[in-house]
């Protein structure tokens, strides 16, 4: 199975029905699949922090929310993750294209790429790192269950090599 298709299927399997997104070159196809799905509300946003706010509201409204973003957006979202998500115990699936990893062609992506796991650790956000489409199919629904039960965000880091599949 192809990587984008696997991520989309895994989102469906998890029961996610509300997705906000900011594009990354690697997430383009997943975003298209989500956008065409009548059972998912898809909201393109202007900045990741805003996306987290919208998803918190959607969760209050009974939805199962996820954000699709590049890892750079994590830097834009540190405060909302701490002083909204951690404070009130709100779940969300954070699906990140992890740039600045092995195979990166753009040196500008390296600093935030390297900082990403440390930022997640500092926020006490658990994350999983599927390496293949098969692993994504298995781990993404598990990650949502973990998020819902633990009432906390869970991250999915999809490195550059993942998207070569």
């Amino acid at each position, binding site marked *: 199975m192809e990587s984008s298709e696997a991520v989309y299927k895994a989102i469906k399997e998890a029961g996610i029905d*509300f997705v906000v997104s900011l594009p990354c070159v690697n997430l383009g196809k997943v975003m298209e699949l989500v956008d065409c799905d009548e059972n998912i*509300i898809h*909201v*393109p*946003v*202007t*900045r990741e*922090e*805003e*996306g*987290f*706010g*919208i*998803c*918190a*509201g*959607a*969760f*209050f*409204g*009974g*939805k199962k*929310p996820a954000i699709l973003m590049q890892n750079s957006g994590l830097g834009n979202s540190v*405060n*909302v993750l*701490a*002083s*909204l998500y951690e*404070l*009130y*115990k*709100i779940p969300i699936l954070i699906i990140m294209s992890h740039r600045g990893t092995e195979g990166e062609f753009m040196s500008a992506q390296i600093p935030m790429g390297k900082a990403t796991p440390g930022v997640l650790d500092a926020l006490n956000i658990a994350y999983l790192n599927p390496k293949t489409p098969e692993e994504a199919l298995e781990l993404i629904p598990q990650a949502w269950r973990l998020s819902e039960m633990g009432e906390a965000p869970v991250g999915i880091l999809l490195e550059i090599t993942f998207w070569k599949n």
Partner: protein
Amino acid sequence: MERIEAIKEVAESLNDELVICNIGFPSRELYAVKDSPTHFYMLGSMGMSSSIGLGLAMSGKRKVVAFDGDGSVLMNMGTLVTIFSQSPQNFILVVFDNQCYGSTGSQCTYTTKIDLLKVAKSIGFKNTFVFEEEVNFKEALDAEGPVFVHIKVKPGNANVPVIDMEPEEIKERFMEEVKKGS
């Protein structure tokens, strides 16, 4: 008018509507004048009231009113574009504009130089209201959303206590209320 009076006017005209209330003194003032399970009080994440309100409005049919401030809107202005583009009919954004960061010592904001109502209109908001001397919130409640309400208030905070509820208690009570109405 004082902000707490404006908050009271709006809160008293609400019944079944869900309210997301901005961090700091606005939440404390709302809690002091009227508490309800329909209220979600923000204790952090400045700037997010409008966005939380948008996500909530898009997830159901019930009317949602987000209480915001000038400093907070300036911090998250992009979301005005998202609100307009998604255009939920059941969403009202109310900006209590005191031209300052009231909860941190009343430092001036740039709404001393720019008009947020003009910003909202230029984005495309069709139903906009501005109130200064008195607040006729019923008009805004009857209008089709998304509605932008600009309420000009004096700087300063009322002498009201902090909210004596735990964050989880605020969330759980609110979510129970949301569930009831859906």
